[in-house]
């Protein structure tokens, strides 16, 4: 009988893509679903060490930690170094809701000259640089599932999805990446 639970990466062993759009599984990260009113934003920003964005589709990043605007009172926080974001948020003595979703989500990284084309094969969101520049983020749909798309570079995207949908998201993106290379 196993003495301890083993952590298994949801996309362990997955590989795909093409020369123009690489599709890879993102490494583990801690994540926080944060809800708060406008009056709590400055205290939470201080506690989390970055300015929570208050404009649609914008994000803030600092040392591998990202705050993504999802709605007028909602953010997705991602820390690639695995910091305990809920504990940090709890230091702010203001009304807020913080739910650790580190293991609810996983992410697929799409990069390359045609990364946007690969994603656009399954998502209606406009990813052109004029309206979706580096740092832009948005919750939208990819095929039949909900995702958060975050542009981390000119040719680099992070696609956050729910863990149980990850093989579906990866498959769609890998297929889109192959088509983009034709």
């Amino acid at each position, binding site marked *: 009988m196993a003495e301890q639970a083993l952590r298994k990466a949801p996309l362990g062993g997955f590989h795909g893509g093409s020369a123009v759009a690489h599709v890879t599984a993102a490494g583990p990260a801690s994540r926080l679903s944060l809800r708060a009113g406008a009056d709590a934003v400055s205290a939470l920003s201080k506690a989390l060490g970055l300015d929570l964005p208050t404009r*649609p*589709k914008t994000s803030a990043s600092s040392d591998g930690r990202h705050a993504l605007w999802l*709605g007028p009172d909602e953010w997705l926080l991602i820390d690639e170094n695995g910091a305990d974001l809920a504990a940090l948020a709890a230091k702010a003595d203001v009304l807020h809701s913080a739910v650790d979703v580190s293991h609810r989500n996983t992410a697929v990284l799409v990069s390359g000259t045609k990364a946007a084309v690969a994603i656009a094969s399954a998502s209606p*969101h406009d990813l052109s640089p004029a*309206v979706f520049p580096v740092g832009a983020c*948005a*919750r*939208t749909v990819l095929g039949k599932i909900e995702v958060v798309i975050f542009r981390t570079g000119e040719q680099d995207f992070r696609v956050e999805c729910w863990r149980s949908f990850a093989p579906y998201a990866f498959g769609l993106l890998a297929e889109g990446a192959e088509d983009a290379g034709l």
Partner: protein
Amino acid sequence: MLLIYCPYCEEERSELEFRHGGDAHIARPTNIADITDEEFAEFFFLRDNPKGLIFERWRHIHGCGRFFNAARDTVSDKFYASYKAGEPKPDLSAVHPATEKTVETYEATEGTAK
């Protein structure tokens, strides 16, 4: 594919991100315990189903998550305006003619043709 303007995201987004939420501006009676069953049914179940301009609730469920209101033409599907929840109905008389009052229900068109 329809593009719907979300007043919270401040841009047009694909209809795939939205969910329809029924008629807007339906006010709950303040004297709900006093009204008759018929009056309650009128408030709770019955909607006008207009041909033409309609004010509806929509939710940007796969985007910012917010409910908002929109004015749409039920014939052409054209969206005339989107505005935040809680804001009053916009005046659209300049861009849209008055809605036809005729309602084509089964009863109205087929009810007597037995």
